[in-house]
């Protein structure tokens, strides 16, 4: 696996290289901040979350194992997991101005394969997966949003994920 710029910087951060940490922040914080804002729907909360995320990255950088996946995917999972933890008792207000669950802008060239496979999903499966990923909606929140039974949403999401996996592995 080719070491991406993020992975190279992360390995230096693991050795407490402050300059590398700063570069990594400049390179990746706009993406991670956007994820936090989109999921929490609140900029102030997103700013606090972003702080926690990068502090965690600073102390946990040595735990990133480049053979197990991309550095950016690792960092994305940290911010998403934290945002989800914060959502536990949040009252969900559906915000239509935030990235629409119906469709998403096309992905970059790096993610061409993922884009192709997303396009093969049934549109309802894709919408449910987007609602979960981009807005951190739970099964019941997605069910409320699309006025469908929770069980339907659960199996829809499952089938969508497995189709995605099958397509990506083929």
């Amino acid at each position, binding site marked *: 696996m080719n070491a991406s710029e993020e992975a*190279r910087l992360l*390995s230096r951060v*693991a*050795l*407490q*290289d*402050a300059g*590398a*940490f700063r570069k990594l*922040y400049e390179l990746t*914080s*706009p*993406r991670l*901040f*956007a994820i936090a*804002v*989109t999921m929490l729907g609140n900029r102030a909360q*997103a*700013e606090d979350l*972003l*702080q926690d995320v*990068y*502090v965690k990255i*600073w*102390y*946990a950088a*040595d*735990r990133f194992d480049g053979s*197990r*996946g*991309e550095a*950016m*995917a*690792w960092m*994305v*999972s940290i911010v998403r997991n934290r945002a*989800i933890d914060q959502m*536990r008792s949040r009252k969900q207000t559906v915000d239509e101005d935030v*990235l629409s669950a119906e469709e*998403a*802008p*096309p*992905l*970059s060239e*790096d*993610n061409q394969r*993922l884009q192709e496979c997303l396009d093969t999903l049934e549109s309802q499966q894709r919408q449910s*997966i*987007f609602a*979960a*990923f981009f807005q*951190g909606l*739970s*099964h019941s929140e997605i069910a409320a949003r699309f006025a469908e039974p929770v069980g339907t949403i659960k199996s829809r*999401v*499952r089938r969508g*994920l497995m189709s*995605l*996996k099958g397509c*990506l592995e083929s």
Partner: protein
Amino acid sequence: MNYNQPELLDRLAAEYVLGTLRGRARARFERMLLDLPEARAAVDEWQSRLGGLADAIPEQTPPARVWREIEKRTQPARTVPSWWRGWALAASAALVVTVVALLPGAPPLEDREVAFVNEANATPLWVVSMNFNTGELSTRAVSAEAREIDKVYELWMLPAEGAPRSLGLMPVSGGKTVQTFSPALLELLRNAKGLAVSIEPKGGSPTGVPTGPVVYQAPLLDL
């Protein structure tokens, strides 16, 4: 719930990464991630599959104050604690990290073993190897095991000047870690006074210098 079924594990991992696994089920799965390498592997794969979705979210630059706060929390002003001056005296006689052969001249093409951490009865705990071409330092746990649940071993370099520099956490239970040294760090290592191992809280020292007891110490031998 029988976590031995690979399909079930895969489904849980997918839902964990997507975010639809919630509540107690999520908490249970997170605990499992600590114990089950197959669960960890499944999660890593799903993170790689789905991570690219984040690409679709238009970037937003965070305000400058966020970075200032991060800096404060990760790089507080360093003061050298008095215990550090006593490092030379603090050696635990029975346990020594020995770094051998930081040679000038043509670096080897492969990993060269540079340190052996042994118990008093010469049972090897860790082997530290360095590839001077790639700058990769590998630490392999031979028989080192975790001491306490919430503690880890951290490896430190004592540079010629300044505070100790962390070289990362040391693996246990047969694990291996690899760190890539920048040329600057490699240079520091060549001129360093020694290595040491301390006990730290989970995640390593929160301050950037050792906070726990130094249990192993090494003079650096110039050959």
